[in-house]
C-alpha cells in the first residue's frame, strides 16, 4: 500500500513536470506570434515585399559614383494615387509619369486637398511595383515619411525626391510608384 502511494507521488511529480514544460511552450508560442511582426518586417525589407523601398540618406546622394546619372538609360516612372475608404481627401500626382536616368536625383510633386471643413491628419503609404524593382527605388525625401496635417479645405503640394539605383536590372523599363492616402486623425499623436 505504502509502495503504491510512493509510486503515485512519483507519478504526480512527473505529471507536474511535463505539464510545466508544456505551459512554457504555450507562453513561448504566444510570444512567437508577436515575434512574427518584426520578423515579417525583416523579410519584407529583404524581399521588397509590401512596397518597402530602399532608403538612401540625403547626405550620401551626390558624393558617390553610384549617384551620377547614367544618361544611356531611360526608365519610366509612373505615379498612381488613391485614397483609402471614406477619407475626404483629393489626391493626385502633378504629372502622371516622368522619364528618368538611373543614378540621378529627381523630384516629383503630389497634390492633396482636404475636401472636408475640418482639420485632418493624413498619411500616405507608398508601394512600388514590380516588387523586384522596389529594392532599387530609393526615396531621399518623402512626404510619406511623416503625418501630414491639413486645415479645413487646405491644399498642399508635397514633394518626393528619389533615386533609382544604377544596378536596377536591365529588364525593368518602367516602375510604378503608388501612394494611398489614409485619414489617420484618430490615430495620430
Amino acid at each position, binding site marked *: 500500500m505504502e509502495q503504491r502511494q510512493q509510486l503515485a507521488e512519483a507519478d504526480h511529480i512527473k505529471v507536474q513536470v511535463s505539464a510545466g514544460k*508544456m505551459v512554457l511552450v504555450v507562453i513561448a508560442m504566444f510570444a512567437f506570434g508577436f515575434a512574427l511582426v518584426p520578423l515579417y518586417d525583416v523579410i519584407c525589407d529583404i524581399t521588397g515585399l509590401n512596397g518597402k523601398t530602399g532608403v538612401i540618406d540625403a547626405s550620401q546622394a551626390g558624393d558617390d559614383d553610384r549617384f551620377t546619372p547614367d544618361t544611356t538609360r531611360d526608365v519610366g516612372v509612373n505615379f498612381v494615387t488613391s485614397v483609402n475608404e471614406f477619407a475626404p481627401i483629393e489626391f493626385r500626382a502633378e504629372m502622371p509619369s516622368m522619364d528618368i536616368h538611373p543614378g540621378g536625383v529627381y523630384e516629383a510633386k503630389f497634390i492633396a486637398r482636404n475636401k472636408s471643413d475640418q482639420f485632418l491628419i493624413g498619411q500616405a503609404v507608398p508601394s512600388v511595383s514590380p516588387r523586384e524593382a522596389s529594392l532599387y527605388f530609393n526615396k531621399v525625401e518623402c512626404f510619406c515619411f511623416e503625418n501630414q496635417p491639413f486645415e479645413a479645405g487646405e491644399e498642399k503640394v508635397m514633394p518626393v525626391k528619389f533615386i533609382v539605383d544604377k544596378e536596377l536590372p536591365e529588364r525593368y523599363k518602367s516602375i510604378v510608384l503608388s501612394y494611398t492616402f489614409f485619414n489617420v486623425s484618430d490615430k495620430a499623436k
Partner: protein
Amino acid sequence: MSDHDHGPAKGLLRWVTTTNHKDLGSLYLWFAFIMFFVGGFMALIIRAELFEPGMQFVDPQFFNSMTTMHALIMIFGAVMPAFVGLSNWLIPMMIGAPDMALPRLNNWGFWILPFAFAMLLSTLFMDGGAPAGGWTMYAPLVLQTGDAFPFVIFAIHLMGISSIMGSINVVATILNMRAPGMSLMKMPLFVWTWLITAYLLIATMPVLAGAVTMLLMDKFFGTSFFSAAGGGDPVLYQHIFWFFGHPEVYILILPAFGIVSMIIPTFARKPLFGYASMVYATASIAFLSFIVWAHHMFTVGMPLSGELFFMFSTMLIAVPTGVKVFNWMATMWRGAMTFETPMLFAIGFLVMFTLGGFSGVMMAITPVDFQYHDTYFIVAHFHYVLVPGAVFSIIAAVYYWLPKWTGYMYNETLGKWHFWLSAISVNITFFPMHFVGLAAMPRRYADYAVQYADFNAIASVGAFIFGFSQLLFLYIVIKTVWFSKQESKATDQVWEGAEGLEWEELTSPPAYHSFTVPPVVK
C-alpha cells in the same frame, strides 16, 4: 482497493464537479453533438438562401454571419470538442491508466466551453450583428464588426484556453500514465495521433490567441499591427492566422486517422498494416503542417520563390498521407471483412477523404490555385475532408465504442440507414460545388449568377437530406444510451475482431473507475 469502487455521485451537480474522465468524455461529446446541430442549422439557412438565385430569406449581412458562425461553431464547437471527448473516454482505457493525469484541469477545460459558446452565440443578438467577416477574421474587414467584436475575440481566447488545457492533459497522460509494458510503439494508433495532435494544439493555439489579441489592440488600443496607415500590413494578419490555421486543419483530421486505424483492422480481422509507418507518417504530416501555411494565400503577392516553396512543401504532404491511405487499403486486402456501421463510416471516410485530398493536391499547384482561390471549389474541398472526413470518423467512433461505453448495442439496421443516407446526401451536397467552383462561383456571397442555379439547387436538397439524417443518429444514440433493452446487451469484447486493452480487459460498460490497478501489457 474496494474503497475506490464506487459509482458516480448523485444529482445534477455531479456533472459540474466531476473529474472522472468518462463523465467528462460524455460531457464533451454531448456538447459537441449540440453544437453540431446548432452549426448544422446555420448551414441549412445558408443552403436555403442559396437554393435559388436572388434574395429569398435573409439579408446579405446575416447570410455572411451565418457562414462565419457556422464555421466557428463546427470547428471549435463540434469537431474539436468531439475529438477531445473521445480522447477523454478512450486514452485512459487504451493505455491502462485509471484516469487522465490532470483531472481537475480536465473539468475546467470542459466547463469553459459552454461559456465561450454562450458568448459567441450571444453576438447574434447584438447591435451590428454577429461577426460576418469569415471565420478567418481577416483584418481590416473584421474590424468593421459591431458590438460583437470583443465578444468574438474573447470567445476565441476561451476556446483556445480550453483546447490548450485539454492538450496538456492528453500529453501528460500519455507520457506518464501508461501501464507497465505499454511502450510508445505499442500504443494504439488513436493514442499516437492524439499525442501528435495535442502537440500541434499546444504549439499553434497560442499563436491564434496572439493574432486575435493584435486585432483587439488594433480596434481598441490604437495599435497598427494590421493597419497600413500606421505602418502595419493586413497581409501580416493572414500569415499569422495561417501559421495557426494550417496546423489547425490537421488538428481536425489526425485524430480521425487514429479512429479509422482502430476500426478498419477490427472489421478486416487483420492487424493494421504498417503500424510504424503510420506513426511516422502522422509525425511527418504534423511537421509539414508548420511550413505550408502560405498556400492559403497564394494570391496575396508573394515572391516567386515563396510561391514555389509553399507549392512544393504542400505537395509533399501527399506522400505521408498516401502512405496512410495505402496502409488502410492493405489492411483490408484479403481481410475477412464485415460491414457493420462503424466499418461503413470508416470506409466512407477512406473514399471521400481521399477525394478531398485529391482536390487539395490540385489547389496546391500555385498557378491553377489563382483560379480556384475563394471559389466554391475550395468549399467543396474542405467540406469533403471535414464532413465525410472528420465528421464521419467521429460518427464511426461513436458507433464503434458506444456498446463499450453503455454496455448495449445500437440498432444496426438504423445505423446502416444512417450511413447510406449520410453518404449519399453528403455527395449530393458537396460534389456539385466542385463544378460551380470551377465555373468561378465565389464563396461567401448570398446571391449568385443564374448559370449556377441548377447545381446550387441540387446541393441544397442534399444538405437538407444530410441535416435531417443526423436526427436519426441522435435518435439511435439516445435510444442506446437510455432506452436499451436487456436483449441488446453487448459482450465485453463487443466486436469479434476487436483487440486492445479497452476490449480485452474491461467490461461493457467499464466500471466508473477502471484500471485502478494497472494491467500488464505483454
